[in-house]
């Protein structure tokens, strides 16, 4: 029996495309609409979801004891818009329910005119739906445009003072953090709050200001960045709409390009410029979702704690989990290759899981550009070099928010090379954990390459740990040892200087597990059943590279143990 469109959407869709192509006249203006028309259940799903959201909104409105003069009308507009979307999709679904069987019947009968007629009816319904959604969007955007901007009293002298301290020349950027902190200590909380509201772009990223005021400023920045992203999405959509239908070869090349540079699943192989509108659209949409969640998701009823956000370039994002002021132990998770705004959920999940213990807070750090692909970016040291000082300065900024906690850095994969670079720049941390680390830091051959003091002259006392799963392919990264180029193979003496110059850009440092005084931790086994893994299964092989930072493994339990044990504690 031939499947009907509703019983087998994928098959029916491809049949439908074939039918459409067979009946389509050269140069016909009708769009190829059959794929969605074969999936009425997807369209009804939208109606059901909106019904659920409308019910939730009505319930919230009923349970609000105190209204707000602006919020009330805004919620009314939102409700109206949701009803427009609901009704538009319900009408579309009804047309699809009626027309799809006619298309299928006409196709089987080879009646091209009847196919065209039914498809035209579907296209008209789609157009009506689009116009109604656009009108509802316009109402919502008018509401957003009418928001009265807050006009706080001018932060004049405070702003000038903070900017003057920020822009002064210092022996190192660490001195700037201390100077900003000292200045902030002379300013009242209310003045800082005013500054955050008036100039969030100054306050949000400035190391040395209290974390609470940075979080406040970053909420405003998140809101602004969402406006920018919404405009970007619209521009990309317009560009995609204006594109002519591509050739088969072009389509295959575009798919290959996306597969190579994708960051949703496996780490990308090769980073490519993002000028492909399809890739751009996916990226912008993922950013919109992430920023909406950072603004309005409320885990355990509390707002998300954003210490840095920027959507420019590869993006910057730093998020804290747990109570920073009360924490006795603070861990900063520095992730590896593939970290960008899209994909930030991975370090976030590790940090969130580490902060699950009492007295422990954790931070997912993306305060610099990270390599995006393991073939053409992660072998190079430039990302680690440029992340070293921002990480060192951030650690200084968050570790002096009251009583200094026991501070750990957890560097995973390329993040290991970054924490090594930060150590070379004199980062003041108590514990460093190299997890499946790409190297001990650019140019590091032994612990003597790390300084004994930070740039302010304070002594550094560091406990170092390393953890690599057996069979983790990261060990190949350790084959390049710039101090011993012949480790790659026999190199004639006359070639040594040239070889050293050649390997220098790819020098991420020696294997940290070989450093003097390093304690090596066990990757162990899976302690729980997880999809794809059974309790008792060793954490090993290629998947072990990522599994070592997954809760539920011996490796993760070991990381948790060392970050929550200060020197002298057991």
């Amino acid at each position, binding site marked *: 029996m031939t499947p009907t469109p509703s019983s087998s959407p994928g098959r029916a869709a491809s049949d439908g495309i074939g039918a459409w192509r067979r009946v389509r006249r050269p140069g016909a203006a009708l*769009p*190829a*609409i059959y794929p*969605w028309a074969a*999936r009425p259940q*997807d*369209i009804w*799903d*939208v109606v059901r*979801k*909106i019904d659920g*959201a409308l019910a*939730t*909104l009505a*319930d*919230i409105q009923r*349970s*609000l*004891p*105190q209204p*707000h003069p*602006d*919020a009330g009308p*805004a*919620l009314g*507009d*939102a409700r109206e*818009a*949701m009803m427009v979307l609901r009704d538009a999709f319900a009408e*579309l679904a009804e047309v699809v329910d009626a027309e799809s069987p006619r298309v299928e019947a006409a196709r089987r009968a080879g009646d091209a005119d009847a196919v065209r007629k039914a498809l035209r009816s579907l*296209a008209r319904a*789609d*157009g009506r*739906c*689009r116009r109604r*959604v656009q009108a509802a*969007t316009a109402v*919502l*955007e008018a*509401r*957003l445009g009418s*928001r009265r901007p807050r006009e706080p009293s001018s932060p004049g002298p405070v702003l000038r003072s903070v900017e003057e301290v920020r822009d002064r020349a210092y022996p190192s950027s660490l001195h700037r953090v201390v100077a900003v902190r000292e200045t902030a200590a002379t300013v009242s909380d209310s003045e800082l709050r005013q500054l955050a509201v008036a100039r969030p772009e100054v306050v949000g990223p400035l190391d040395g200001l209290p974390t609470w005021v940075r979080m406040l400023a970053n909420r405003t920045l998140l*809101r602004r960045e*969402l406006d920018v*992203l*919404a405009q970007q*999405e*619209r521009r990309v*959509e317009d560009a995609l*709409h204006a594109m002519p239908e591509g050739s088969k070869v072009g389509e295959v090349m575009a798919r290959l390009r996306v597969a190579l540079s994708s960051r949703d699943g496996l780490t990308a192989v090769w980073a490519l410029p993002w000028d492909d509108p399809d890739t751009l659209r996916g990226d912008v*949409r993922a950013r*919109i*979702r992430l920023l*909406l*969640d950072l*603004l*309005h*998701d*409320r885990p355990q*009823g509390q707002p998300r704690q954003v210490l840095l956000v920027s959507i420019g370039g590869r993006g910057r994002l730093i998020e804290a989990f747990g109570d920073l002021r009360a924490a006795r132990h603070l861990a900063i998770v520095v992730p590896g290759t593939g970290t960008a705004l899209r994909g930030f959920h991975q370090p976030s999940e590790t940090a969130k899981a580490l902060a699950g213990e009492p007295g422990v807070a954790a931070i997912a750090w993306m305060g610099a550009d990270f390599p995006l692909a393991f073939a053409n970016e992660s072998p190079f040291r430039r990302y680690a070099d440029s992340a070293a000082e921002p990480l060192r300065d951030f650690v200084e900024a968050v570790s002096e928010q009251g009583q200094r906690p026991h501070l750990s850095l957890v560097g995973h994969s390329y993040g290991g090379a970054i924490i090594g670079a930060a150590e070379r720049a004199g980062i003041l941390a108590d514990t460093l954990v190299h997890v499946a680390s790409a190297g001990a830091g650019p140019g590091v051959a032994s612990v003597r390459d790390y300084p004994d003091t930070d740039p302010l002259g304070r002594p550094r006392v560091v406990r170092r740990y390393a953890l690599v799963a057996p069979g983790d392919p990261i060990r190949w990264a350790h084959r390049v040892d710039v101090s011993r180029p012949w480790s790659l193979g026999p190199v004639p003496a006359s070639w040594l200087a040239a070889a050293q110059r050649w390997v220098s850009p790819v020098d991420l440092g020696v294997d940290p597990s070989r450093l003097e005084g390093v304690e090596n931790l066990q990757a162990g086994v899976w302690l729980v059943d997880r999809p794809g893994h059974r309790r008792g299964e060793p954490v090993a092989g290629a998947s072990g590279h990522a599994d070592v930072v997954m809760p539920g493994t011996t490796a993760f339990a070991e990381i948790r143990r060392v970050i929550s044990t200060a020197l002298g504690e057991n």
Partner: protein
Amino acid sequence: MADADGQAEAVLRLHRLASSQGAAEAAFAAADHLPELSTGHTLYAFGTALALVLGDAADQLDEVVDTLDEGAGQPDEAAGQ
């Protein structure tokens, strides 16, 4: 205090409705799963605007919660003096 608690709970739900998994989710999912639909090209703009309107309202209502909290705190502070 009951008013403040009720308001806080309702505003918390409104914040969640403004997240990507809230009211906008239907529009986002439709745009992602039905790209051939010409309506699909308008749905992210719709979902984003909807979430922002709800989120702005939630932020404004947070201020009401703060006011209620302060009001509820005053008698206790006075009693403690």
